[in-house]
């Protein structure tokens, strides 16, 4: 499955990103950055409520497929700029991380 399919199937809002052809391998949930940094796998969907610039740094370095901000968590302006510069895909949903993860597990 690629990110495009994820967006369509789960009706996610796109906050940043243009190319949605990235492949998805799995999913990781967490808000503590160094935890995510070491445990998230390349190509994971990352579910979090952290929409600050540091999340973008982690997404870039850990090579996640995309960030999904759950519970409509806000994305800072700084974070959006950094995400644009680094081609990080950021999506948003009103669902919480549990609901989102459960929905994703039906797809992958």
């Amino acid at each position: 499955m690629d990110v495009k399919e994820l967006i369509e199937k789960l009706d996610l809002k796109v906050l940043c990103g243009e190319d949605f052809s990235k492949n998805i391998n799995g999913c990781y949930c967490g808000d503590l950055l160094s935890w995510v940094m070491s445990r998230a796998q390349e190509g994971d969907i990352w579910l979090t409520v952290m929409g600050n610039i540091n999340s973008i740094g982690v997404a870039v370095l850990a090579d996640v497929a995309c960030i999904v901000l759950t519970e409509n968590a806000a994305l800072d302006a700084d974070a959006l700029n950094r995400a644009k510069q680094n081609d990080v895909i950021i999506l948003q949903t009103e669902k919480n991380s549990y609901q989102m993860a459960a929905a994703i597990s039906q797809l992958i």
Partner: protein
Amino acid sequence: MEEVKLHYDVNAYDFTCAGEASGKLKRSLKDLGFDASLVRRVAIAVYEAEINMVIHAEGGVIDSTITPECITVVLADKGPGIPDVELAMQEGYSTAPENVRSLGFGAGMGLPNIKKYTDEMTIDTEIGVGTTITLKIYNR
């Protein structure tokens, strides 16, 4: 490939830049043709050390030396030093203040992550003088 040396300055308390040096290093290593999983290991380790310089010290400098066999990164700060390195290396130990915890830091996983992703890690630290962390990752 010749030996490549890259230098980065890390600003104090500047979270808007934090992660920039490790991001740049990551891109350079990719461009030099290193294997993606090796690049990822370097990036994660250097990110954690870079963020620590921002949160716990007053910024610092990063110097990396890249050869086909080995990537060496030295991160030096003039911060407060680490009183008990063994304790600081334990998973979950953190002195991060509340304001940075709300940004997602403070799990106490940074130093253990560095250990996990590098082949060699040494910490030289002196109270009131600063901390220098040296990382080595071999390309094999």
